[in-house]
C-alpha cells in the first residue's frame, strides 16, 4: 500500500503481529470514492493515453511484478527433518541416544562391552529414519498431486500505454495502467472502472456470490467490495467490456491480501499430534518412574553406580515402543489411501484423524452446498406456483406443462433471452452444456430447452425484429419478434424484467391461456407469489407479452429501439419465473448425518441472508420447524427486540452485524444457537468465526473453494478445499481436498477419521501390552539375579517383527457400533491413550503375558537341569566367562557357552510365548466393548496377521543359521504350548471384563429421558417423543438404552422430523437429538417393543 495510504506505514515497524491484525481488517481501497480525474492524478496516468512506457517500467521496478508471492515454501530438507524429529520420533531418538550413552559408559569401563546397547541404538535410529522417510514420501506424494492441480496458464492483459493498445503479460501490469477487459477475460489487477459497456464480473471466488455483478464507473457503495466501480484481480469478466485504471497490483490487491493473510496464519497442532504428545508424556512418565525406582533399588542391592546408571538407561529404553511409530504411520497412511479412494485427498497424514474429532463444520455455501449454477426453481402462472426440477440429474418432480399459459411463458422466456449454447456440445446433457450469457438467462435457456425442446428452433421460427437490452434504469429487457404463423402478420412483443416493473406495464393477465383483465385480486395474488418466491431467496423475473395490433404496426414496421416508437404499455402479464443456485442432491442427507454424529454445521457465506437462509433450510442446516428470532417475531407479530433470543435455535447473522459484535456476544451466539447461518461475510470475518468456534473448544472443519475462504481454511483445525472448483490458494491452505466437490464426502471423512481414532487406540493398546513381558525379565534379572530371560534382540524381533502386522491389521477393524451416531470426541476428556488404557495394557494383560513368558523360561531351564530353586542369585556365576564348570540341580557341569545356549533358547521361548499370548491380545484388542463373539472374526488382515506372526516366530526359531545371526535356537515342540494357558486366561479375563462393561456402562446406568409410543396401526413404526426426565430404568429398558440396539443395522434407518429433545444413552454419554425419531423397525421388534416401551400418558 506504501504511499497510497499512510495508515499502513506504522504497522511496518511493529512486525508481523501487527501486520496480521492489519490484514484481518477490511480492505483499504479508497479509489472507488475518488473521481476519475483524481485517480488519474494519483497514478500519474492519463484516461486516454494511459501510462508512458517509462513510467510503467519505473512502477514495475517500484512495485514488483503483478503476481501473488507464493506462500513461503519450506525447503525439502526442513520438511524431511520435521518428519524425522517430530512427535513420536523424539521419543525414539531419546532412546537411541541413551543407548549410545550406555554403550559409551560400558565401553569406557569394561573390557568386553556387550554390544546390545549399541545394536539397540542403531536399530532405533534406523527405525526412526525409515519411518521418517516413509511419512516424508507419503506427504511428498500428496503434494505432488497438489502441483498437478495448479494450472499455470500464463495470463495476458490488454493495456493502453502511450495511447497504444498492447497485449502484455499480466505480471507486467503496474498501478496506473489503463486496462481493457472483455467478457471471458480474467481481471489482471484491481481496477477502478472508468467506463463500462454491459460489463459483468463474476466475483464468486472473492465474495461467494454466485451471480455475476454488473460494473459501471459510478461509486455505489462505500464498501469497496460492494461498489460497482471496482473490479478485482483474478475474478472473471463474464460479459461486456470495461476499461479501468489499475489501483493495486500483486500482493496489494484484495486477492493478494487474502493470500498473504492465509500464508501468514499459523495453524495449530492437529488433534492427533496433541494426542501423541499426551501419549509420550504418559509413556515417559511410566518409563522414568520405573527407571528411577529400579535405579534406587539397584544401588540398594549393592550394584555399582555405573551399573545402576546402565540399568536405568536400559529400563527407560525398554519402555520405548519401537514399532509403534511405524504402526501409527502405516495405519494413518492406510486410512489416507482409503479416503483418497472415496474422494477425500489428505495432504497431511495427521489430518486423517482430525475430521473424526471435528465438532463444528463451517461450510461455504456456493459450490460446496450448492451446485454453483443458477437454475429455474419456481414458476408462477395460472395464479399458481409451480415447482421446477432443480436436481442435478433431473430426477425431481415435474409440473403440469399442458397449460397454454406455460406455453406462452416458455415462449417469452425463450425469445426474450440473449443466452445461447456454445457450439459443439450437442451430445452433452443440457444441464452440462456451457452457455454464453448471463447466469439467469442461461438458467432460463436451459429450463426451456429441457421442457420445450430446442430454443434455437423457437427463435428461428420467431425472427427477432428489434431488441432493447436490459439496463438498470428500465429494469427490463424486450424484444419484438415475428410470429410463428406465416399468415399472421402481427408482431409479438416479449418483455422480461423486475416483476413490479413488468406488472406496472400490464393491464391484462393470461389465465389458462385466456387473457383476462388485471384486477386488484389478481394483483394481490401476484404480490403474494412474488413475496413468497422472494422469501425463498430466489431471484424473480416477470414476463409479459403483447401481440401488436396489425393496423398500428403493419408488417415491415421500423421499430426504433433508441427512440422507442412503439407501445410498451398495456401488455399482457404471463407469469413469473424464479431462479436459485440449488443445493446439491447429496447435501441434505450429509448434513443430517453430521447432525446425528453430533457435528454442528454452520453456513458461512458471502451471499445475501435471504438466499443463504433459503439454502440453509433447503439442506437442513436450519432444520424444519426451527425458527430464527425474526421468524418468531413475525409469527407472534411482535418486534424482534421482544423475542427471547434463547427461544430461537436458529439464527441468521449478517456480516455487518457481525462487525459490531463483541467477542462475548459472538461466543454467546455460537454457544446458544445450534443452527447458525452467517451471510454477507468477508474473508476476514470467516476467520473470526473460525477463531470464535475454536475459542469455545470446538475442533473446526472449514470447507470452501474460493480465495475468500482460504484464511479460514488455514486457521481451521482441518481445512477442506474443493478439488474441482477450488482455487489454488484455497487448495494450498487446506489440509484435505474433496476431489468430487461434494459435501457428502466430508461425512465419509468423518467416519474414517473416527474409525481410525478408535482403531489406533486398539493398535496402541495391543503394542503397549507386550512392553511388560519385555521389561519384567530385565527387572527380575537385576533384582533376583536370574539368568536374563529375554534379550534385546528378541525384544526387537517382537516390536519390529511379530507385533507389526497384527497391530496394523487392527486399523482394518470394523466399527463396533455406529460411529456416526455418537458425539464427536471431547478432546479434553477422550484421549487416545489414557490412564485406563495403560492400566489395562500394563497392569493386567501385560502382567499375564509376562507370567506366560516366565513360565516357559522356567520350563526350559528346569527341563535342562536348572530348577527354579537354584536360579535365584546364579547370575554372577552364570555370566562369568571364566566359570566353565557351573553345576546345575542334577550335578552336571556346564561351560559358559553351553549354558548361554540354554539361555538363548530361553530367550527364543520367551519370544515365542509372547507371540502366543499376543494372539489372545490381538483378539482382545479387536473390540473395546463388544464380545468377540458379537463382533466376529471378519477382519481378514487380522487373521493373516495371526498366521504371519506365528510363521515369523517359527522361522526365526528354526531357520538354520539363526543361532549365529540372531542367537535364536530351535525350540522343542512342547515349549510352544507353555504360554497357551496364559493366552486362554487373557481371552477369558477380557471377555469377562467386557461383559461387565456392557452390563455396567460408565459405572452407572443413566436415566433415559424419553418416552416411546408404539403405534399399532403401522406396526413397524415406533415414535419416540419428548418427555423430560422420566427414567425408564429396569432390566428391560437397559436393552433400549444400549447403543447397540439403536445402532444395529436394522434400526439405522430412522427419519428425523418434528421437534422435541431426546436424550439417548449409549452408556457413556447422553446425546441430545432435537428430533422425534421415527424408527422403522423390522417386524420382530414391535413384539419386543411391547414389553420394553410403554407409552406414558402425558
Amino acid at each position, binding site marked *: 500500500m506504501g504511499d497510497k495510504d499512510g495508515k499502513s506505514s506504522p504497522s511496518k515497524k511493529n512486525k508481523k503481529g501487527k501486520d496480521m491484525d492489519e490484514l484481518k481488517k477490511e480492505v483499504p481501497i479508497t479509489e472507488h470514492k475518488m473521481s476519475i480525474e483524481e485517480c488519474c492524478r494519483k497514478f500519474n496516468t492519463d484516461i486516454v493515453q494511459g501510462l508512458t512506457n517509462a513510467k510503467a517500467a519505473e512502477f514495475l521496478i517500484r512495485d514488483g511484478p503483478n503476481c501473488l508471492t507464493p506462500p513461503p515454501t519450506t525447503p525439502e530438507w526442513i520438511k524431511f527433518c520435521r518428519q524425522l524429529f517430530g512427535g513420536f520420533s523424539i521419543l525414539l531418538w531419546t532412546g537411541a541416544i541413551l543407548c549410545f550413552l550406555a554403550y559409551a559408559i560400558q565401553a569406557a569401563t569394561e573390557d568386553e562391552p556387550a554390544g546390545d546397547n549399541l545394536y539397540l541404538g542403531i536399530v532405533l535410529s534406523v527405525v526412526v529414519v525409515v519411518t521418517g522417510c516413509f511419512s516424508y514420501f507419503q506427504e511428498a506424494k500428496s503434494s505432488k498431486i497438489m502441483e498437478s492441480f495448479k494450472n499455470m496458464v500464463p495470463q495476458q492483459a490488454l493495456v493502453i500505454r502511450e495511447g497504444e493498445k498492447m497485449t502484455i503479460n499480466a505480471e507486467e501490469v503496474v498501478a496506473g495502467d489503463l486496462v481493457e477487459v472483455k467478457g471471458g477475460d480474467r481481471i489482471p489487477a484491481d481496477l477502478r472502472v472508468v467506463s463500462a459497456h454491459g460489463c459483468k464480473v463474476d466475483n464468486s471466488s472473492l465474495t461467494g456470490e454466485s451471480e455475476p455483478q454488473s460494473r459501471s464507473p459510478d461509486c455505489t457503495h462505500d464498501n469497496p467490495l460492494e461498489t460497482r466501480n471496482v473490479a478485482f484481480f483474478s475474478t472473471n469478466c463474464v460479459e461486456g467490456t470495461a476499461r479501468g485504471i489499475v489501483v493495486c497490483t500483486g500482493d496489494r490487491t484484495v486477492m493478494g491480501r487474502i493470500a498473504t493473510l492465509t500464508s501468514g496464519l499459523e495453524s495449530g497442532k492437529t488433534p492427533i499430534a496433541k494426542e501423541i504428545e499426551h501419549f509420550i508424556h504418559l509413556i515417559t512418565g511410566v518409563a522414568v518412574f520405573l527407571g528411577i525406582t529400579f535405579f534406587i533399588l539397584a544401588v540398594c542391592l549393592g550394584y555399582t553406580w555405573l551399573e545402576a546408571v546402565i540399568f536405568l538407561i536400559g529400563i527407560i529404553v525398554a519402555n520405548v515402543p519401537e514399532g509403534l511409530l511405524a504402526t501409527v504411520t502405516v495405519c494413518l497412511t492406510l486410512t489416507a489411501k482409503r479416503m483418497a479412494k472415496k474422494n477425500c485427498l489428505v495432504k497431511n497424514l495427521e489430518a486423517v484423524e482430525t475430521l473424526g474429532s471435528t465438532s463444528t463444520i463451517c461450510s461455504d455455501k456456493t459450490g460446496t452446498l450448492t451446485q454453483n449454477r443458477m437454475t429455474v426453481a419456481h414458476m408462477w402462472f395460472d395464479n399458481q406456483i409451480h415447482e421446477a426440477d432443480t436436481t442435478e440429474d433431473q430426477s425431481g418432480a415435474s409440473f403440469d406443462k399442458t397449460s397454454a399459459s406455460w406455453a406462452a411463458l416458455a415462449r417469452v422466456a425463450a425469445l426474450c433471452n440473449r443466452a445461447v449454447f456454445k457450439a459443439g456440445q450437442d451430445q452433452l446433457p443440457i444441464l452440462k452444456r456451457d452457455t454464453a450469457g448471463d447466469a439467469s438467462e442461461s438458467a432460463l435457456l436451459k429450463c426451456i430447452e429441457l421442457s420445450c425442446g430446442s430454443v434455437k428452433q423457437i427463435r428461428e421460427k420467431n425472427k427477432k425484429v428489434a431488441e432493447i437490452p436490459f439496463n438498470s434504469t428500465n429494469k427490463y429487457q424486450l424484444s419484438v419478434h415475428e410470429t410463428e404463423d406465416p399468415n399472421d402478420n402481427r408482431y409479438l412483443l416479449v418483455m422480461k424484467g423486475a416483476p413490479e416493473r413488468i406488472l406496472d406495464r400490464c393491464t391484462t393477465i393470461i389465465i389458462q391461456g385466456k387473457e383476462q383483465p388485471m384486477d386488484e385480486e389478481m394483483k394481490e395474488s401476484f404480490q403474494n407469489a412474488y413475496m413468497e418466491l422472494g422469501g425463498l431467496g430466489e431471484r424473480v423475473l416477470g414476463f409479459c407479452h403483447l401481440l401488436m395490433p396489425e393496423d398500428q404496426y403493419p408488417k415491415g414496421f421500423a421499430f426504433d429501439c433508441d427512440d422507442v416508437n412503439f407501445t410498451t404499455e398495456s401488455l399482457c402479464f404471463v407469469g413469473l419465473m424464479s431462479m436459485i443456485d440449488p443445493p446439491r442432491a447429496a447435501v441434505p442427507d450429509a448434513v443430517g448425518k453430521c447432525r446425528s454424529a453430533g457435528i454442528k454445521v454452520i453456513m458461512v457465506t458471502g451471499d445475501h441472508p435471504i438466499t443463504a437462509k433459503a439454502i440453509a433450510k433447503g439442506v437442513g442446516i436450519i432444520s424444519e420447524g426451527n425458527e430464527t428470532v425474526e421468524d418468531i417475531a413475525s409469527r407472534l407479530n411482535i418486534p424482534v427486540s421482544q423475542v427471547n433470543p434463547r427461544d430461537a435455535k436458529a439464527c441468521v447473522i449478517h456480516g455487518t452485524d457481525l462487525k459490531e459484535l463483541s467477542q462475548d456476544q459472538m461466543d454467546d451466539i455460537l454457544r446458544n444457537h445450534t443452527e447458525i447461518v452467517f451471510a454477507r461475510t468477508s474473508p476476514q470475518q470467516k476467520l473470526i468465526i473460525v477463531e470464535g468456534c475454536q475459542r469455545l473448544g470446538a475442533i473446526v472443519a472449514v470447507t470452501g473453494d474460493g480465495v475468500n475462504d482460504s484464511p479460514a481454511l488455514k486457521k481451521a483445525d482441518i481445512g477442506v478445499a474443493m478439488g474441482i472448483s477450488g482455487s489454488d490458494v484455497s487448495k494450498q491452505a487446506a489440509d484435505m481436498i474433496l476431489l468430487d466437490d461434494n459435501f457428502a464426502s466430508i461425512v465419509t471423512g468423518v467416519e474414517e477419521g473416527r474409525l481410525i481414532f478408535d482403531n489406533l487406540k486398539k493398535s496402541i493398546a495391543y503394542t503397549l501390552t507386550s512392553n511388560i513381558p519385555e521389561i519384567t525379565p530385565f527387572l527380575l534379572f537385576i533384582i533376583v539375579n536370574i539368568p536374563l530371560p529375554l534379550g534385546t534382540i528378541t525384544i526387537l524381533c517382537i516390536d519390529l517383527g511379530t507385533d507389526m502386522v497384527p497391530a496394523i491389521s487392527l486399523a482394518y477393524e470394523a466399527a463396533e457400533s455406529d460411529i456416526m451416531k455418537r458425539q464427536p470426541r471431547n478432546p479434553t476428556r477422550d484421549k487416545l491413550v489414557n490412564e485406563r488404557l495403560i492400566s489395562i495394557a500394563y497392569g493386567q494383560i501385560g502382567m499375564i503375558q509376562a*507370567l506366560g513368558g516366565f513360565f516357559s523360561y522356567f520350563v526350559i531351564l528346569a527341563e*535342562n537341569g536348572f530348577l527354579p530353586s537354584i536360579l535365584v542369585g546364579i547370575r554372577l556365576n552364570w555370566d562369568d566367562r571364566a566359570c566353565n564348570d557351573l553345576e546345575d540341580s542334577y550335578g552336571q557341569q556346564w*561351560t559358559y557357552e553351553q549354558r548361554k545356549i540354554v539361555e538363548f533358547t530361553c530367550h527364543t521361548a520367551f519370544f515365542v510365548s509372547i507371540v502366543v499370548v499376543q494372539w489372545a491380545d490381538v483378539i482382545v484388542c479387536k473390540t473395546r466393548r463388544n464380545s468377540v463373539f458379537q463382533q466376529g472374526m471378519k477382519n481378514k488382515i487380522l487373521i493373516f496377521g495371526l498366521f504371519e506372526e506365528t510363521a515369523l516366530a517359527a522361522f526365526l526359531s528354526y531357520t538354520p543359521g539363526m543361532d549365529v545371526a540372531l542367537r535364536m535356537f530351535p525350540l522343542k515342540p512342547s515349549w510352544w504350548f507353555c504360554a497357551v494357558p496364559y493366552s486362554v486366561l487373557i481371552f477369558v479375563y477380557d471377555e469377562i471384563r467386557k461383559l461387565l462393561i456392557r452390563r455396567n456402562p460408565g459405572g452407572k446406568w443413566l436415566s433415559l429421558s424419553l418416552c416411546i409410543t408404539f403405534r399399532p396401526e403401522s406396526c413397524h413404526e415406533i415414535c419416540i417423543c419428548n418427555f423430560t426426565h422420566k427414567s425408564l430404568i429396569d432390566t428391560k429398558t437397559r436393552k433400549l438404552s444400549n447403543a447397540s440396539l439403536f445402532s444395529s443395522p436394522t434400526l439405522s434407518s430412522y427419519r428425523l422430523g418434528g421437534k422435541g429433545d431426546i436424550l439417548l444413552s449409549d452408556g457413556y454419554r447422553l446425546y441430545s437429538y432435537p428430533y422425534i425419531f421415527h424408527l422403522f423397525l423390522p417386524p420382530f421388534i414391535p413384539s419386543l417393543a411391547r414389553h420394553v416401551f410403554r407409552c406414558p400418558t402425558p
Partner: protein
Amino acid sequence: MSTKEETPVADGDKPQTSSWKDSIYNPRTGEFIGRTAKSWALILLFYLVFYGFLAGMFTLTMWVMLQTLDDNIPTYRDRVASPGLVIRPRSLDIVFNRTDTKQYGQYVQHLENFLQQYNDTVQERNELCMVGEYYEQDDQEEKKVCQFKRSLLRQCSGLSDTTFGYTEGKPCVLVKMNRIIGLKPRGDPYINCTAKRESPLQMQYFPSEGRFDKMYFPYYGKNLHSTYVQPLVAVKLLLTKEDYNNELTVECKIEGSDLRNSDDRDKFLGRVTFRVKVVE
C-alpha cells in the same frame, strides 16, 4: 458420568479455584491425584485380588511342570552332549614369583582345598573298580563310586611337595572334565597339553599318559551319585630357567576319544587354554 447439562456447570466453577496443587490433592473433593481415597482403595483391592489370582495360577502351572520332571535325570541333556574341560587352580592366568610365597600361596591353597575330597582316607571308602571298563550300575538302587586317590597324582598330589612344584618354578595344574550324567566316552580319553611356542615344553602327566579311566563313567547324577568324584589329570609344567619371565600359553585337549575338542564357539569344550608366567 453426568448428564450433558451438568458438565458445563461443573467445568464452570472449576477454573476459578483449582490450581496445579489440586491435581495432587484436592481438599474440596478429597481427591488425591484425581481419585478419592475410596477409589484408590478399590483399585488397590482390585489389583491385590487380581495379582493374588495370577500368583496362584503361576504357582499352579509351575507345580504341574515340576511334577513332570524326573528327580535324577534332567528331561533334556542334548545341550550338554560333550563335557567341558576346566583347570585348577581356578584361574586362566597363573602368574607368580616362585620366591614369593604370598603370590603362589593362593594357588597352592586352592589346590589343597580342592584335593581334600580326593584324600586317600576319604577315597578308601569307595569301590576299587575294574580298570578300563565302564562301571555301569543302572540296575542298582544305590550307585557306588570308584575311588580316585589323591596319591595317584604323585608329585602333583601335594603330599610330597606341599607347594605343588610352585617353589621350584615347575607348577602343577589339575585338569578335570565336567560331570555329565550318563556320559560314556568311547575310545581311550587322555589329556594332551601343548605350549604355544616353537620348541615343545616338557610336561609330566599324572596318572601316567594323562588318562581318564573308563571306570569313572558313567555319572548318575547328584541325587543318586552324591559322593562321586571326577577323575583328574595333573600336568606338571617342567619350566626351565629360560622360560621364566615369559608368558606361556598352554592348551590342554582331551584326545583319543569321541569327545569334542575343537568347537568353534565353545573354547572350553574338550579343551582348555591358560597362561602361565613364572617370575624369578
